[in-house]
């Protein structure tokens, strides 16, 4: 039977296994024919959306993994915007609004609110947190 999942990522791209575990789980979910409402990045999870991480060339790039997954499966990657802004995770829009000349979040990630997590939980069969 097909189920609808929502995935919450609370750990950063580097320094914790949370993000890789979440990515693997999301890949397996989709490959098994289930639905993923969205992947929601909260707490330190928003660090997965920066374009400024530069892993060494022989290391796994989990941020690239999320971008490829989103492109392949049309899964939304949603940041909690207030968690992001407090951590220096900024898209072009917030950069402009705050007079910054740099930003680090490109269009693979959407800046959203906690409301999107809550409505996602409401519509999904199961929330899985990493």
């Amino acid at each position, binding site marked *: 039977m097909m189920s609808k999942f929502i995935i919450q990522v609370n750990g950063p791209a580097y320094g914790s296994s949370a993000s890789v575990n979440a990515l693997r789980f999301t890949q397996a979910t989709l490959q098994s024919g289930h639905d993923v409402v969205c992947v929601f990045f909260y707490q330190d999870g928003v660090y997965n959306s920066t374009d400024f991480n530069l892993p060494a060339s022989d290391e796994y790039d989990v941020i690239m993994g999320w971008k490829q997954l989103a492109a392949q499966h049309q899964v939304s990657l949603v940041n909690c915007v207030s968690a992001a802004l407090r951590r220096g995770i900024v898209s072009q829009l917030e950069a402009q609004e705050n007079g910054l000349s740099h930003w680090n979040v490109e269009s693979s990630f959407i800046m959203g609110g906690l409301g999107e997590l809550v409505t996602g*939980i409401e519509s999904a069969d199961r929330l899985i947190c990493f």
Partner: protein
Amino acid sequence: MKKICILFRSAPHGTTKGREALDLALLSASFEQEVSVVFIDEGVLHLLKDQQPELIGGKDYLATLKALPLYDIEAVFACKQSLGDYGLSHGLLSIPVTILNDEAISAHLKVVDEVLVF
């Protein structure tokens, strides 16, 4: 509408987990979800009254705990064992809580739809 339980397991101030847990609890309640909060392990330290986080560069998000009833969050539980471990008697708590033993907390986690641990 879903039954969402927010579990506070980490001490306040050292990390932002508690603050972001409380933000999510209030937001979920304002989105008409049936929200409960549980304080357990080091998380019970959120309940100690008269804390002054500003002195260590923190924000006094603990004051927001008093807003739980305004958001219709009536199910506020604390673990009896954890309160005892940290020497927190009733008179030391900042807000009214229902004190539950381990079995009652387990039973509560079984009847909600989702549990988010912070």
